[in-house]
Each structure stands twice: as structure tokens, then as C-alpha cells.
């Protein structure tokens, strides 16, 4: 069923790789500059629900991978499949040294908290994002804590284990 969409994507955009990963799932590997164009194209195609924005740290390849998962929100739009929803996964890789990417909040406004979270936990900054302020974390971290080179054990030893036990006077 994806064949038509697959061909359309491949003819519209250069340098992308479209793979049928599962029955109801299509994965698109794209260049970073194409992301907003592809997402806008898919939104016009009926994939109007951004389920998730996530990031993966490929430390050996020195890349961050951004993952956008799209689906159709309305059941009527899924008529071609009986019950299962179709998912479109758009992936792109950006360099680890200078992690910057264009925001997609203009296309999907609900990407805002996801991008804030990724900014906080991975240190990827999104150009044009309305507010990249802290979301969850209270403490300052030298390395953002979800990066693979963040040593949680060492951090715990340095921070929480150094806090002394309260010594109480004997009664």
C-alpha cells in the first residue's frame, strides 16, 4: 500500500532513502535541510499528527539522529488499512560537534515541548524555536545527561554521594 507514497517521495526529493520497515510503517532517511519540506509535504498528504520527536546519540559515528514519527489522526484517513494505523518515521542525522537544526514548530506546533526536552537532555539547539528554556531539570549539567558520554555513575558519586549524612546528637 505504501508503494505509491514511496514512489512519490522518491520522485519529489533527492538524496532520500525510503524503506518499508514494517507492514504499516515507512521509514524515510533524509538530509537535514530537507526535514521541514518533507514534513510539510507529508502533512499535506494527510499525515497531520506528529506523535513523537525523539533523538538518538550515535556516539561512535559522531552523529545525533532526530526521529519524527507521523501518523494520520482520524480513523477515516486509515481506511486503506483495516484497523492498524500507518506510521511514517522521518529520520535525519546531524553532526555531534555543532548540534543545530531548524525547528519544525511552524509546521507542527505540538513539537515545541519535544524540542525543548531534546534541547535540555541532548543539548541540540533548534533555530527559530520560540522558547528553549529548561523544562524538567533543576540542576546544571556540564554534559547534557542523555548523551552517551555522560557518566551517570560518576555524576552520582560526585554530587549525591558527597552530600554528608546528618549526624544527630545521641539522645
Amino acid at each position, binding site marked *: 500500500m505504501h508503494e505509491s507514497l514511496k514512489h512519490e517521495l522518491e520522485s519529489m526529493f533527492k538524496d532520500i532513502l525510503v524503506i518499508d520497515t514494517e507492514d504499516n510503517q515507512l521509514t524515510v532517511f533524509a538530509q537535514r535541510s530537507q526535514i521541514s519540506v518533507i514534513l510539510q509535504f507529508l502533512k499535506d498528504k494527510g499525515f497531520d499528527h506528529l506523535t513523537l520527536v525523539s533523538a538518538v546519540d550515535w556516539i561512535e559515528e559522531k552523529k545525533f539522529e532526530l526521529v519524527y514519527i507521523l501518523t494520520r489522526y482520524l480513523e477515516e484517513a486509515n481506511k486503506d488499512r483495516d484497523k492498524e494505523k500507518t506510521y511514517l518515521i522521518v529520520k535525519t542525522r546531524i553532526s555531534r560537534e555543532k548540534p543545530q537544526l531548524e525547528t519544525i514548530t511552524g509546521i507542527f506546533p505540538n513539537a515545541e515541548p519535544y524540542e525543548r526536552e531534546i534541547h535540555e537532555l541532548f543539548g541540540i539547539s533548534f533555530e527559530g524555536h520560540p522558547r528553549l528554556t529548561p523544562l524538567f531539570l533543576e540542576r546544571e549539567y556540564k554534559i547534557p545527561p542523555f548523551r552517551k558520554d555522560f557518566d551517570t555513575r560518576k555524576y552520582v558519586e560526585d554530587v549525591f554521594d558527597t552530600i*554528608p549524612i546528618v549526624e*544527630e546528637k545521641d539522645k
Partner: protein
Amino acid sequence: MDRNQIMKWLKAPAKMSNKYSLHAIYFCTGCGIIEVPPVITARWDAERFGVIPVATPRQANLFLITGYVSVKTLRAIIRTYEQMYEPKYTVGFGSCPINGGMYWDSYNTIKHLDKYIPIDGWIAGCMPRPEAIFIAVVHLWTLIDKEKANGYIRYRENYKSYRRNQELALGKLEWPPLYPINSSS
């Protein structure tokens, strides 16, 4: 009323009343809160033990911390604890407040809760069964009888150390000290 205890009631009526009417405030930090609705409702019915949930910390004297404590929730826990009236008792529920539990190497959870506020008793387990809450309540009764559930007194006496630890974990606290911090203690 138990006739054996009539002397205790005559000696210290306020203490006995506190003991048998624990008004609990549950701090729903983590998965432990799953165990609390069956405990306070008909299935296990905590009111048999005089434990009843209340809405605000101002009305409570039992503080049950159910689940892991992240740095951000520690701030709320301290503020809740300081708002409760004395005598107040604190019970850590589950293994996470004891030593971090499965979050032992997490970047954002507090490992030992007793470094920041005084704890009167622990319920170990991941998760403890609802019955464990009642065992803890009965233990707390004996501790109150022996006047060993003295967390709030220890807090007052060692407030300087507790406040120092709280500031180490949270940075600058935006509320003033609960007790005066004099240099001698």
C-alpha cells in the same frame, strides 16, 4: 477502647489521640501511589487503623512518601514537610527513598531521603504490599509509645545540617529557614 491502655490514656491523652488518628498526606512521587487507593478504600480500609487521607499538609501528621524522589520533587517534599504541624511523622515507602532503589545511578533522583528530611520509618520493598503500610502503622504506634518517633524534634535540633544538605542538593532555597540557624548547633 482497649482497657489495658486506660492508664496510657490518662497519662498522655494528647499523645494517644495523635497515635490513633493519623491523618496522612500521601506524596505521590512515583509508582508507590498505586498501592495507596486500595489501602484507603474498602479493600484494605486504612480507617480501621485510624489512618485517613487528608487534603492539605496543614491537616496532616503522617507524611507518606511513595516512590522515587527527583530533585524537583525534593523541593516540594521539603515545603510540604515544613508546613505540617507537630507532632509529625514521616514514612518512606518503597526502596527508592531508602537508597535510590532502581534509580541508584540516575542523574536526577535523590538517593537517600533521610539526608534532607528526618524519616521515622521505612517500608522496604519494590513495591511493598498494602499490608506493609499497616505493619508500618503498627510499628509507628510502638515508636510513638516509646517516644522514638521523634523526627520532628531531630529536625529542629539538627536543622542546620538538614538545611545545608538541602542547599547542596537544590542550590539556593527560596524560602527562609524554618527554625533559626544559630552557629552553635
